[in-house]
């Protein structure tokens, strides 16, 4: 008999496929994974502590640095939380602009997820096509917010400035092209037999496990559970839009991948409806220069971010700075399920699973 031994392989923190400073310690028996240990904290910037030293308005740009691939979503969550805390009513037009920007961010984030999965699995061309389409969204962000990646466009009480004239045609042409983009991703990758073989049945996340671990977002929906905060607990004006929730059947990597592609289409539908229904009017509510919520008041607000349920818990002590701010980061909680879905697979499945769980380390480490 040959004597065999169990060995560990450290995937990361410096590794091409860990999407940032993620360290995954894989305990291997040959090519079979026995266990996986996730080490976090390489991108820790103490964002929650920084919040205690900044005024409510000053912290807005920092929130964009949490999930930097879906810029407007974390900012939207924070601004809505502060608005809830102070009881600020946001003007109608601003709400519609926010929905459009949020859904564009969701598309941008999913496109990154798609392209990153492409390159992680060796389909380099898939990366380029995803990035190429994302570029158009970045151009839209540039024309509205002035910056491409971290535009900090959404502000407490509304948005920073009204949309420019060229915004609506640009968004319309983008929405029109979404079916073509989806067809291309599906044709190049989803339909490919090698791709399907690498993803099908890999990293199966059972619905019960997903609920037990608190997994949210596309990962949960891929397991077949129709839970989306936009429908379950509509924030902002999301109850006015008609859209479907793409669901998976098996909960494997292929389902997680397919759900993301389909969600791009649904986001396109929401944007279309929002563009049609957008009224004229104010874009920012009257917000005092210094925000001082009543002492002891606290609020928890959650939104459906591109990665899952993003929540902000803010406690006020009556001053212009929050007493305590906590972020419920979906990536952090989704990553915790990685060992469960990796066990028993082969080494290459770790990469597939990280890619399809789509964590963002800026958010999970904070």
């Amino acid at each position, binding site marked *: 008999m040959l004597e065999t031994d169990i060995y560990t392989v450290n995937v990361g923190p410096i590794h091409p496929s860990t999407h940032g400073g993620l360290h995954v310690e894989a305990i291997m028996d040959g090519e079979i994974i026995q266990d996986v240990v996730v080490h976090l904290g390489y991108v820790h910037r103490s964002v929650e502590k920084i919040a205690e030293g900044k005024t409510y308005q000053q912290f*807005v740009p920092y929130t964009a640095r949490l999930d930097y691939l879906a810029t407007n979503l974390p900012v939207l969550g924070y601004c809505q939380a502060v608005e809830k805390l102070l009881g600020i009513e946001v003007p109608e037009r601003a709400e519609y602009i926010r929905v459009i920007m949020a859904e564009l961010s969701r598309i941008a984030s999913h496109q990154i997820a798609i392209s990153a999965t492409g390159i992680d699995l060796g389909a380099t061309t898939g990366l380029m096509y995803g990035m190429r389409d994302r570029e158009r969204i970045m151009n839209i962000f540039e024309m509205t917010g002035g910056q491409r990646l971290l535009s*900090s466009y959404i502000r407490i009480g509304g948005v920073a400035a009204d949309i420019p004239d060229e915004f609506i045609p640009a968004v319309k042409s983008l929405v029109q092209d979404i079916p073509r983009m989806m067809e291309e991703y599906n*044709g*190049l990758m989803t339909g490919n037999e090698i791709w399907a073989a690498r993803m099908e049945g890999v990293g199966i996340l059972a619905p019960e496990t997903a609920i037990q671990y608190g997994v949210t977002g596309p990962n949960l929906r891929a397991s077949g559970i129709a839970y989306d905060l936009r429908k379950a607990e509509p924030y902002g004006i999301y109850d006015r839009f008609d859209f479907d929730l793409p669901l998976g059947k098996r909960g494997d990597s292929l389902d997680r991948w397919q759900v993301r592609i389909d969600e791009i289409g649904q986001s396109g539908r929401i944007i279309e409806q929002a563009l049609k229904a957008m009224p004229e009017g104010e874009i920012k509510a009257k917000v005092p220069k210094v925000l001082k919520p009543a002492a002891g008041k606290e609020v928890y607000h959650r939104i459906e971010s591109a990665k899952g349920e993003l929540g902000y818990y803010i406690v006020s002590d009556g001053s212009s700075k929050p007493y305590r701010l906590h972020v419920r980061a979906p990536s952090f909680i989704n990553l915790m399920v990685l060992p469960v879905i990796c066990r028993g697979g082969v080494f290459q499945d770790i990469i597939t699973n990280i890619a399809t769980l789509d964590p963002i380390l800026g958010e999970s480490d904070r």
Partner: protein
Amino acid sequence: MKGQGLIKGLGITLKHFFQKEITEQYPDVMPELAPRFRGCLRFQFEKCIACGICVNNCPNDVLSFETEKSDKSKKKKLLSYSIDFQYCMFCNLCVEGCPTNCLYFDHDFELSSFEREDIKMIYLRPEGLDEAEDSQAEPEEQEDKEQKQIEAMLKALQKNPQKVLSRLLEGEEDINILSELIQSDQKTAGKIAELMIKDKEKALKVARGFINKEKKNRAQQEMDGGKGGDNDV
């Protein structure tokens, strides 16, 4: 049939092979930037009134300036203004807060430099600015102005004490006590209004004094079982 997906993928890449490249020819052709694009933060010295809103708004302590009390006009005089770019996160909060639009972002995005010191931008007071400003403001007018300001402050204090006092004090309870005081007593109001214009720190001290006295009074009253109902200061 197996293999169809592979052939479809090959077809897609082949189609793109003959399509036009979309690469931006960056150093040769400069990219077209949106009008709102935030490149380099610039400062116009002549427009600045040294109000400090930008410094207060900045989340990262990028901005700082030095002032000097002018001998003739008793007005704050801006000596230098510095932007420490290495900490800037281009959030636009300073530009939005600026009342005179002296800060703005231009489209220059090539901000890298060889030395760390070169990143910091310091604007020094241009020569010839002093004379131009001195000729505008005269000392007598200044005193008149102050008197007018005190009167305006007094009016505001009597009309809406909570709001005005929130600029001076922190804590809701204290503000409420003092505003009650002001509404009942003209003299106190006058004193606080004058001090608030002339010397804010002294105003704070005096206000604290008033509040403590009032608090003691109230505590006394409660101990007495609420016998005396009136506020007498």
